[in-house]
């Protein structure tokens, strides 16, 4: 039996409010990924979840560039996060 650990947060839709993590990958077509990077949700960006709309609604996030975005939950599922999730800066 291994040690019990909290499961690692691996994608943006799983990130709890007031916590932040680094984007490490975008699981989607290159075209969609390029568009997301241009908006400010690319690899290497730190995202903080501010709130989640109820019933699988939008995520309200802040990116390290300073902008705030509302992101589709389904899209967030395909935004990969690196380890080292932490309390909001």
């Amino acid at each position: 039996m291994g040690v019990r650990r909290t499961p690692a947060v691996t994608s943006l839709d799983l990130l709890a409010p007031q916590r932040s993590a680094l984007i490490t990958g975008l699981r989607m077509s290159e075209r969609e990924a390029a568009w997301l990077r241009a908006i400010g949700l690319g690899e290497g960006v730190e995202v903080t979840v501010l709130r989640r709309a109820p019933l699988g609604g939008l995520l309200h996030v802040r990116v390290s560039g300073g902008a705030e975005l509302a992101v589709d939950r389904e899209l967030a599922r395909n935004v990969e996060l690196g380890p080292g999730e932490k309390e909001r800066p």
Partner: protein
Amino acid sequence: MTPSCVVALVGRPNAGKSSLFNAVTGGHAKVGNFPGVTVELLDAQVRALSGELIELVDLPGVYSIEGEADPESDEGHARQFLDRARDEHKPLVIAQVLDSTQLELGLGLTLELRRRGVPVIVLATQHDALVKQGFELDAAALQEALGVDVLATSARAPGIKEKVSQLLADVWRQQRKPPHGTIDVRKLARQVLLPKENAAQSFARVRRRTERLDAVLLHPLLGPLVFLGLMTALFAAVFMIAEPVTALIDLANQALGTRIEGVLGTGWLSSLLVDGVLGGAGTVLAFLPQIVILTIAMELIDASGYLARGTYLVDRALRFAGLGGRSFVPLLTAHACAVPAITSARIIRDPGQRLRTILVLPLMTCSARIPTYGLLITTFFSDRSAWFKGAMFVGLYFAGILAGLVASLVLGQTVKQTGQRRPLVLEMPPYRRPHARVVARVAWRAGTRFVKDVGSVILIAAIVLWALLTVPGPGDSHSAPPGASPRVVAMHGSLAASAGRLLEPLSKPAGFDWRLNVGLIGSFGARELMVGTMGVIFGIEGGEDDTAPLSARLREAKTATGAPAYGPATALALMAFFVLACQCMSTLAAVRRETRSLRWPLFVLAYTYAAAWVVAVVVFQAATAFGL
């Protein structure tokens, strides 16, 4: 005159392009806090102090100019402009409008623009907001690092017009090709933002304000409540504040009519002026205050930053109905007018959502419906309390929204999803205090445009209708009540009356007689004309010495047998008809333009009229059964 150069304002949505465009050209580009506010390309010419004539173009927002973009989207339209300018070898200068409070995000686009091989200048705007956050931009250092000219400015900086136009002319003359290499924009942004003494506190203060407001306005329970409350208050205000003013304009109309009849007697000229011009166009003009109030409210919602919050709140519900968060702005805009709303549907990236949105937009309660609603409520529910009437008016707005959601759900089954689903990502701008001057200017323009419309299209249509109702035709004039004046007898035999009577078998189950049918025919192309047509018909029926307002005349209208012609049941049925029917040629033309097909505008026409007729019949029959 051909300009020396064309300057394209390129930047992310909300960067401040339109504000800068207005400041430099003195123009009237629509400023907004939301992507998609600028969907059409606006251009204007300015002359630099050194003599060059510069053509400035305000483009829709773009995040990137490389990679693929949907050509139908607003971003696609901006890119097409840039590509065309390159292919046609236009003397192009790219002026990037960059929100200096989001420097890092904007610089990515700068790198792309530098690769275009045309002169580039960076206008780092909203510098006043940056200063409030406790920072300053080191424009010289940024210019050095980028190899293109940089100006730190703000749309309200004094002397901006001269400064920017001269700078643009200089950039054009120098024809400097920007360098290409890549730069670490995150590092660069940190280097050129100089914190002032208490930067940390200032920044925290500005951020805290937005966070506090969001905590309430985006709260899972409070947020939707506030949203619904705001919408209700807005619709109620349109009715309650504007009603007395409308009554006043109506009174002035009557006084003028009495004067004209006093001077001109009761000949046909007097009838043309009083029944046709005043009764037709004048009655519509009385609804000016509603239009202005609605415009001001929309502007406040937009300029304050609430629009994006509204989108966040309604996204889930709209998605359930087959629409999406991005449909919200077109849907809200359609409460003023469906035509710009259909254009603004370009901000919807998902093609299926976009089509469905366009198809249901005509169901939103546009301001052209207000005159009919106002007239029907004040006429047939005059003995009710102001609250009841206000609630009824608000109910009509929500009926339109509900109809749109239901229509979208039904369409979801028929209008097949084309291509893949495109998810939503939307910027949430900080809250801002709206500027009284900007709001006043927008309200003034909406008001003058309405007056111009009434003075041109509606006036002409009212006169044509008057003629069609006055010139004797092949119709049966025996339906005129006994002892009616020759003019009323002539109207009953007129062409318009015959057409109205032709439709009676179809319209009787909904409670509409030939006079209402004439109104419905008259308002086929533009629904404002309903009230105008009623004004003309009942103006003629009222005879010479009757100066009662239209509402009183409608209440007292009789059938051929002398029974009251209309009652609350008729009013409800007519309202239902107006909620649903797309009585607007301009809307159909816009649907045709945006869908590039004849099929969809015809579809809109067919489904809205069919639904309008069915629901009007059901409402009339039910209301009659309940004894209304």
